[in-house]
């Protein structure tokens, strides 16, 4: 009675669920493993489907029999009067037969598994995938000399929570988005800079971990030009969900152009060009940057009305961005953050969270500008825990922009933006200390208060007020930096 009602409900629910499933499922999503675009992912998906077919076969047979058994041997009215079912204790022949059948079915999976393990663990030497990469012949740049027939190498570095991609043969470093030539085997060396990460680019290849202290590698190949999405697949701390990356698979010609463009480095702001002289009739981008750098020191007022130059000066100077970031050729050579050369050519920011790609693949410049402003001025909201704005009062190594915010605060400056003594008392500052503060209004607050107290006292201030009294950048200055970053293309 109850059972039949359950059955009826199930029968009614099933078509509903099935239709939901069919309409709700797309197997070509951004990170679908079922839509392979390269030989490694193809092998892995093929193997997956073999396991699916074998398991489905078993499921239909075993499940079917199970349903039949449960229906056929259910207790029927009147059974209670009959003798109990025959007491059998098993049948060795059936057991052995079923074990043998299971082993045979597993062999169907095991053989292609072994094949695929070898294929994915060794650089391919056979047709169809391997053609000598011809790096030396198809790429005409100087860097490639002596690299003939060697496979293109990319060193992928995992950081909490972003990616750095270096091309050691080409002298290129990029971050969070990298480029590979279509139909070429690429060897990716996987190195972690802190905890364990995992490199997963589902449509191109399954994952391999970046294991600190170990030299893992994998090979990949893209067989279709396009923009592919990947992300870190090993839990790596607070913002693990925000450690995304992207890969452009390009036709060879496009890749060559990309490399040449990247190697030229960033252009100095305002199209600044160093003067040719007889020692260097053809100045390099680096010369331009050095000339620009000298000019900012000697003649800063020249740049007064140009947001890009203003931004560049903030980047190199007050904003301290160069402590962590590199822009190739420029004086910015920090190694702790993403390389920002050509950052404006990337289709996303902050390891893939802030996207500014149009549906046609081009870059939406307005959106990009917004993203730059949002990311540099509010990075702690976009990606909690990131060290560009590392705000953990429990530790001494607070880094990046947070230091700007509290640097140079004094009693007098706080008073000028309306912080009264009551705020100090509320933060647990005792009277004696407060008296000392009043006596020394121009002395830095760090001489008297703990870091936590300074934060408490100033917690009511807006970013704008901070920019008036500390080294924190004003909204206008953040906009300049964003404008400069957007010029890096």
């Amino acid at each position, binding site marked *: 009675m109850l059972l039949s009602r359950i059955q009826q409900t199930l029968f009614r629910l099933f078509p509903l669920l099935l239709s939901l499933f069919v309409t709700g499922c797309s197997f070509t999503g951004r990170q679908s493993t079922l839509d392979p675009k390269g030989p490694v992912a193809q092998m892995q998906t093929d193997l997956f489907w073999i396991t699916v077919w074998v398991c489905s076969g078993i499921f239909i047979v075993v499940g079917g029999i199970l349903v039949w058994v449960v229906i056929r041997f259910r207790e029927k009215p009147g059974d209670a009067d009959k003798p109990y079912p025959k007491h059998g204790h098993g049948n060795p022949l059936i057991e052995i037969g079923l074990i043998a059948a299971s082993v045979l079915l597993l062999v169907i999976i095991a053989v292609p598994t072994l094949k695929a393990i070898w294929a994915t663990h060794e650089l391919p030497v056979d047709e169809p995938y391997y053609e000598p990469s011809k790096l030396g012949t198809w790429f005409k740049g100087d860097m490639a000399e002596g690299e003939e027939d060697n496979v293109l190498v990319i060193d992928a570095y995992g950081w909490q929570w972003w990616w750095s991609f270096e091309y050691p043969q080409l002298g290129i470093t990029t971050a969070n988005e990298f480029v590979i030539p279509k139909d070429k085997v690429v060897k990716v060396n996987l190195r972690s800079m802190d905890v364990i990460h995992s490199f997963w680019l589902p449509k191109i290849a399954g994952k391999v971990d970046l294991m600190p202290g170990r030299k893992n590698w994998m090979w990949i190949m893209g067989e279709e030009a396009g923009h592919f999405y990947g992300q870190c697949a090993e839990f790596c701390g607070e*913002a693990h969900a925000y450690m995304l990356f992207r890969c452009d698979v390009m036709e060879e010609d496009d890749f060559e152009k990309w490399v040449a463009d990247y190697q030229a480095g960033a252009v100095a702001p305002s199209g600044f060009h160093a003067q040719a002289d007889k020692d260097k009739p053809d100045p390099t981008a680096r010369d331009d940057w050095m000339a620009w750098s000298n000019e900012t020191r000697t003649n800063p007022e020249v740049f007064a009305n140009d947001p890009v130059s203003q931004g560049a000066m903030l980047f190199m100077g007050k904003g301290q961005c160069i402590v962590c970031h590199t822009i190739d050729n420029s004086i910015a050579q920090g190694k702790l953050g993403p390389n920002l050369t050509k950052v404006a050519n990337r289709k996303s920011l902050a390891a893939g969270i802030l996207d500014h790609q149009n549906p046609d693949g081009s870059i939406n410049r307005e959106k990009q500008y917004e993203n730059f402003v949002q990311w540099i001025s509010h990075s702690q909201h976009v990606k*909690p825990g990131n060290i560009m704005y590392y705000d953990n009062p429990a530790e001494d190594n607070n880094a990046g922009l947070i230091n700007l915010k509290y640097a140079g605060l004094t009693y007098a400056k706080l008073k000028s933006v309306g912080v009264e003594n009551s705020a100090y008392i509320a933060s647990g500052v005792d009277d004696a200390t407060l008296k000392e503060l009043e006596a020394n209004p121009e002395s830095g607050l760090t001489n008297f208060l703990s870091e936590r107290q300074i934060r408490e006292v100033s917690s009511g201030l807006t970013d704008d007020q901070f920019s008036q009294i500390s080294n924190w950048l004003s909204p206008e200055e953040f906009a300049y930096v964003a404008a400069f970053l957007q010029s890096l293309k």
Partner: protein
Amino acid sequence: MSAVHAEPVTVKTELPKTRSELGLIRPDRKTGLADWLTTVDHKKIGIMYGAAALFFFLVGGVEALMIRTQLAVSQNDFISAQLYNQMFTMHGTTMIFLGVMPLSAAFFNFIVPLQIGARDVAFPRLNTFSLWTFIAGATVLNISWLFQFAHTVGWFGQDLVRTDIVPAGGWFGYAPLTSDGYTGIGTDFWILGLQILGVASLAAAFNFIVTIINMRAPGMTMMRLPVFTWMTLVTSFLIIFAFPAITIALAELMFDRYFGTNFFRVDMGGQPILWQHLFWFFGHPEVYILVLPAMGIVSEILPTFSRKPLFGYPIVVFSGAVIGFIGFAVWSHHMFTTGLGKIATAAFSLLTMAIAVPTGVKIFNWMGTLWGGRISFTVPMCYGLGFVWMFMLGGFSGVMHSAAPADAQQQDSYFVVAHFHYVLIGGVLLGLLGGLYYWIPKIYGKMMNQKLGYGMFFLILVGFNLAFFPMHYLGLTGMPRRTHTYLVGYGWDLWNLVSTIGAFLLGIGILIVFIDLVVTVLSKKRKCSADPWDARTLEWSLPSPVPSYNFAATPVVSARDCWWEHKHGDEPLEYVPGDSHGIHMPSQSWMPLICGVGFLVFGISMAMMGAGVPHAGYVAIGGLVTVVLGIYLWALEGPGGYHIKPGPENSPKAPTPQPEHAEANV
């Protein structure tokens, strides 16, 4: 019937109260709280294990629902990234160590001595020690929530500035993320809590091995043991071989964090990969530690309600042992993506496929048990059949993972989450709930509400599949696990929402089952007979609830399923005549509780030491001294004990001619 059952009255003979050399007297026959705190009765200990397990199931369930609520829509900000990480860390740790394992332990404790015809477990006080040590470890782990709450509302004032008080390194605790450079004192709570829980598990496992080997009633040969008892034995062996690995790993991690050793510090030449080998050498057998007891329960339920013995008993037992054995040879399949190299990858791939064979054998034999039977769809039977179905699905996705290259796409994706929840909920939890419905009439002499039972089984099954089947799809389309949110545009929104709805249905179903359980326990109306299922094994020969001394007279076993043979076959149970002084009962003891308190103090103050609280290290030493003192006094507190002579009202009942059905008792 032997003469023992004709004893006219219950006579209790007190032995003279003997003080030990230290002047200690052991308590006995107290009522109320002191009785529960000092009891050495395996049945009461089992009930306390069960109560703790159900409580922590609810805690872990709330954590799960927080996770699912956060993931219901993309870029949700219901909880922060850090809190989310704490939620999934504590959800996994709680469900495994504080939910499933103690619920299994509850059944081990209550059922195994009854199934083998024993008076108690081999070491009753060690059994109590396991319980209180378990409670201590569980408290250490979960008290971090209290500390975090206190910190959030500002009870610690201005100077304590830690924000990561609850463990957030995942239940797997991979170094170097769990090293001191990356996580705070949450990891200390986690290390200490798990270490203490390990002590509890090891003590319990040794106890059950000795009990099952030594305490069987006459004639209860190994190949006549009920399958549940067999699986308890295998599980206990798995525990004593697997837990030392995680004990070592946790100790090394603790040394790294507290004393500056370099086991896992990469910059000092440490090897994080070592953690993974040690952890999974424990972690994979742990999966079987979780699932084998449930398999044992199902192997009891299916024959009972098919009215037919288990098909291929020897091979079911043997395959259980083989699963346990091969379970130690497949740990690296959790590490296919860590760069094992092709040889190791291939070897672990093939071994993982191999373990599917004994698992398949069990399924075939369960079907063989059903075949030709007379299947009555009681609530436990529904859970048993649900187990077979759902576990089969989880097994299939397991085979899919065993193909290492395919696993490279599935590892750490929601496909894996789907897989192990099919094993752990579809398998283990359904099995354990089946066990609850099956044995509660024995434990309390009362019947849970069966109509509600059918409804909730249906709700749990639907909710579970709605929650976890879509995760296969999510994983295959690239959604990684342990991510606190996901961006728009990946096509994961719809099925995450469906999954969340399913999770809430599942949660409601389980909650109602638990409420009904509590109502049943408190109710005075739902009484049932001693053998309401017309079951097969020895525990059903006893009155319900089971008297404190278990068997008035030790039965002599002459067949597998001896109670069934006694009722319906031609092998009536005989009983060994009792001693003239009656049954010897042990006195109770405070010492195991003292040890538990010592562990609690030790664990919390070690974590405090990690947080830099002054003098916490000395308190931790004090905690350890308390443990040692408890064990020392325990050895010296003297034998105690008293004699008891059961009367006829407590002797084994003669079989009822007509088996009573569950419906009749509602």
